[in-house]
C-alpha cells in the first residue's frame, strides 16, 4: 500500500502551505504503517465535520463519513458501537469540536469510547473566511469581532483532562515526525484519544513564526500521572506568552465504554418466539 494508493482522484483545494497537508500526510503514513503491520484498511473509518479540515476524507481512499458541523464525535461513536472491530478516526476543526460540538467531545471523554479525535486547531474559522473560535486569543480581530474578541480562549487539553480523556496529546503542523508518532500512539491506544494539532492557517491566522519560537517537545514517559499532566497542560493557556509543549501529556488505560456496553451475549435469539413470550405476559 503506497501513499499514492491512499489518495483519491479528488483535486486538493487547500491553500499552498496549509497546515492541513502535514496532517494529511502524517495520517496517510500511519495508515500505511498500520496496514503493513497487519491491520486491514477496510476496518478503518474516517469521520470529518465541516471546514477546511474536513476535506481530508475526500482526499484519502479509505472508508469515510463526511458529516456535519460539530457532529464528528456522535457519528464516530455510533460507528464504533455498531462494530467495535472498526478503528474510527475523527477529524474536526477547533470551531467544529470546541464550539458547535463541545458537548459531544466532553461525553466522548467521559465515556472513554475507543475512537481517536484529531483537532485541526488553527484558531480561526477558515472556510467561512476568518471569524474567531473558542481557542482564538483575547483581542483576536476577526470578521465577526472587528474590535477584537472580549473573551479568553478555552484550554482544550485541560477540558479534556477534566472530562476523563485517557490519552491527551498536542502536535504542530510543522513537526511532521512528532505528528506521525502521536497519531500512531493515539490510534493504538485503547480508549478515547484526543490530539490537539496546532495547525497553521496561512491565509487567516498565520502563527508559523510565533509557534516556531515557542514549541518544544515533552520528554518521553513524563507526566503519566494526573497532577503532573495538569501542571504541564496549564503551562500555556492558548492566550499568554509561554512555552508550548508538544507530545503526549497523559495516558491511562481503563475499561472503554463499548467494553462495558457489550457485555451481554449477542447471539441472535429467535425473535418471533420472544415476541410471543412478551405478548403472553401481557394477557
Amino acid at each position, binding site marked *: 500500500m503506497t501513499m499514492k494508493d491512499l489518495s*483519491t*482522484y*479528488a483535486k486538493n483545494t487547500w491553500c499552498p502551505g496549509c497546515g492541513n497537508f502535514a496532517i494529511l500526510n502524517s495520517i496517510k503514513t500511519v495508515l500505511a504503517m498500520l496496514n503493513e503491520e497487519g491491520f*486491514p484498511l*477496510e*476496518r478503518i*473509518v474516517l*469521520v470529518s465535520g*465541516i471546514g477546511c479540515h474536513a*476535506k481530508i*476524507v*475526500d482526499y484519502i*481512499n*479509505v*472508508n*469515510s*463519513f*463526511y*458529516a*456535519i458541523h460539530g*457532529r464528528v464525535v*456522535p*457519528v*464516530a*461513536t*455510533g*460507528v*464504533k*458501537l*455498531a*462494530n467495535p*472491530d*472498526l478503528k474510527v478516526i475523527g477529524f474536526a476543526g477547533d470551531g467544529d469540536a470546541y464550539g458547535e460540538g463541545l*458537548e*459531544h467531545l466532553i*461525553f466522548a471523554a467521559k465515556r472513554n469510547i475507543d475512537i481517536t479525535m484529531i483537532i485541526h486547531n488553527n484558531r480561526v474559522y477558515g472556510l467561512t473566511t476568518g471569524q474567531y473560535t473558542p481557542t482564538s486569543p483575547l483581542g483576536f480581530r476577526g470578521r465577526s469581532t472587528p474590535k477584537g474578541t472580549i473573551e479568553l480562549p478555552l484550554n482544550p487539553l485541560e477540558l479534556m483532562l477534566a472530562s476523563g480523556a485517557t490519552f491527551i496529546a498536542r502536535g504542530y503542523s510543522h513537526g511532521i515526525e512528532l505528528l506521525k508518532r502521536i497519531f500512531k500512539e493515539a490510534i493504538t491506544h485503547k480508549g478515547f484519544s484526543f490530539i490537539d494539532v496546532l495547525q497553521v492557517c496561512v491565509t487567516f491566522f498565520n502563527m508559523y513564526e510565533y509557534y516556531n519560537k515557542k514549541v518544544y517537545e515533552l520528554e518521553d514517559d513524563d507526566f503519566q500521572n494526573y497532577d503532573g499532566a495538569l501542571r504541564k497542560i496549564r503551562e500555556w493557556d492558548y492566550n499568554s506568552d509561554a512555552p508550548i509543549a508538544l507530545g503526549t501529556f497523559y495516558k491511562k488505560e481503563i475499561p472503554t465504554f463499548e467494553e462495558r*456496553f*457489550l457485555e*451481554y*451475549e*449477542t*447471539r*441472535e*435469539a429467535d*425473535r*418471533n418466539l*420472544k*415476541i410471543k413470550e*412478551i*405478548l*403472553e*405476559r*401481557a*394477557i
Partner: protein
Amino acid sequence: MDNFSVLIGGKAGDGIDKAGLIIARILNQLGYRLYIYRDYPSIIRGGHTFSIIRASKNKITTHLNKVDFLLALNQDSVDFHKDRLKDNTSIVYNSDIVKFERLPAGNQSLGLPLGKIIKEENALPVMYNSCIIGGFCKAIGLEWNILERVFKKNIPKEIDLNLRVALRGYNEAREFVKVETLLNKRLPVLTGNEAIALGLIKGGLKAYIAYPMTPSSSILHFLAESADDFSLKVIHPESEIAVILMALGFSYAGERVAVGTSGGGFCLMTEGLSLAGMAELPIVIVVGQRPGPSTGVPTHTAQSDLHFVLNAGQGEFPRFLVSPGDAEEAYFWSCVALNTSWKYQIPSIILADKSLCEGVYSFDIDSIGEMEEENPILWDKKESYKRYLNTETGVSPLSFVPDKEAIIKVDSYAHDEFGITTEEAQEIKSMQDKRLRKSQYLMKELEKYDTVKIYGNKNSSVALICWGSNKGVCVEAAENLGLKVIHPVVLSPFPIKEFQDSLSGVQNLICVENNSTAQLASLINRYGFRVNEKILKYDGRPFSLDELEERLKDLVK
C-alpha cells in the same frame, strides 16, 4: 353489560396507571376487549390523575365521557368527574377522605375505609389502589381467583401484602351488578408504544437510541428492559442531536437503528434528518406528538406537528411517513417503516401522539396477517463499488464496512457516485434526480398495502377523514351514525390514487383532527382535494365518542 367504562382516579403517586392496567387485565380474563384512556399531569406527586378503562365485546379504541363505575381514591376524583356520571353509575370510594355528603345523590355507592385498612394490614399508601380494586371486583361479581391470578402475574413486589389488602376490600364490598364472562379469545393488553417497539423488533431492529421525552420515553424504557432478549443496543446519550447522529453512525455501519422523540426533540434532529436524506442513510424516527408550541402540554395529546415533520430538514429529499391508528397498525407499520427505510435508503418517520403512545389496547396479532421480510439490494461485486451508483430506481446497491473490495464513503455535501464532494452542475442535478426518483418507485411498491383504509358505511355520501389515533373514535361514531370513514395511514409519499378512489360517492367531507389549523385538510389541498367541514379539538384531550357524536349530529343536521 357488554360495554362499560370504569374511571379510577387519585393523585399522582397513587399508582393509578398501574391500577388501570390491572383492572384492564382482570376484565381481559372475562373475554372483554379493552381500551384505556390515561390522563395525568406533568408532576410526580399530587395533582389529579385518572384512567378510564373501557371494556367491550368488540374491538374499541376510543373512550366515552360517561362512565359506569367510578373508583375514587380521593375527593377530587368525585368532584372533577361529576359530569361523567350517569344515573346508574356505581361509585366505590375511599370513605376515609371522600365525604358521603358530597357524593351525587341517586348513585349507588360503596365506601371502603382504605386508610384504616392499610393501617391495620401494615401496608403502604400506594396499596390503596389494590384495596379499591378488590372492592370493585366484588362489586362486579368477579371470582376472587381471577383477581389473585392477575395480581400475581402483574405485581412483582410485595404480592402477599397487596393480595391481603385487596381481599379486605373484596370482603368489605358487595355486588352491584354481575359482569358477564364473554366467549372471546383472550388477547394481550399493551400500550401503543409497546406495539411500536415490537413492530420495530419484528422488522429487525438492532439498536435504539433516544433521549427521554414524553410521550415517547416508554419505548426507550421497554427496549432497554428487553435489550438482552433481542440483543439490542439501547443507548440514552447526552442530547437529541447526539441521538440522531449516533444513529446515523450505526446506519452507516449497517445496523438497523431507530430513534424516538417528541416535537421539541425532533426540532433538534432536523439537521440530522437532512443529513440522512443527502447521505441516503436508512433511519427510523418515532415522533410522539403532544401539544405545542414549545414545551406546550407535555403529558397531553395533539396532532399539530404533521406539516413540521413532513417538511423538516433543509433541502428536498423523499421520506416515508406513516401515522398508525391503533396498536395493530402501530406494530405492522413500524415494521414496514424499518424495512422501507433500508430498502430505499430514505428516512422513515412514525408519527404517533400521546393518545396512541400511552393508550392501552387489546392487541390482536392474528388480525394483522402475513408480514413479509424485506431485504435491501446489495452490491453484486461486479464493478468497482460506488456507494451512490445512479440506477434506474435511484436506489444504489449497498455494501457495509468492513468490505475488503469496497471503499464506502458517505457525504453530507453534494457528491458524485463514489461519495466524493462535487460542485459540478450536471452532477448536482443528476444526483438530486436520483434521490427524488426513489419516491416514485416507493409509491409503486406501496400499492400492495392498504395505505388508505375505508370504514363504516361505504355508500354514505358523508365521510369523515382523519389520521392517526382518531381512527378509533371516528370509526365507532361513523358506525353509529351510518357514515363513512377515510383513514390514510401513509402520508408521505401521499397515496393520491388510493385517496382519490376512497372519495367516490362522497359529497360532504368532514375532517376530524386534534389541532387548530386542520393540517390533514391542508395536506390534501396540495393534491386538489378539499374538505367541506372541520371538527377540530386542541385542548390537549382526545375526542371521546360521545363528544364526537354530538358535534357530528350538529353538523350533519
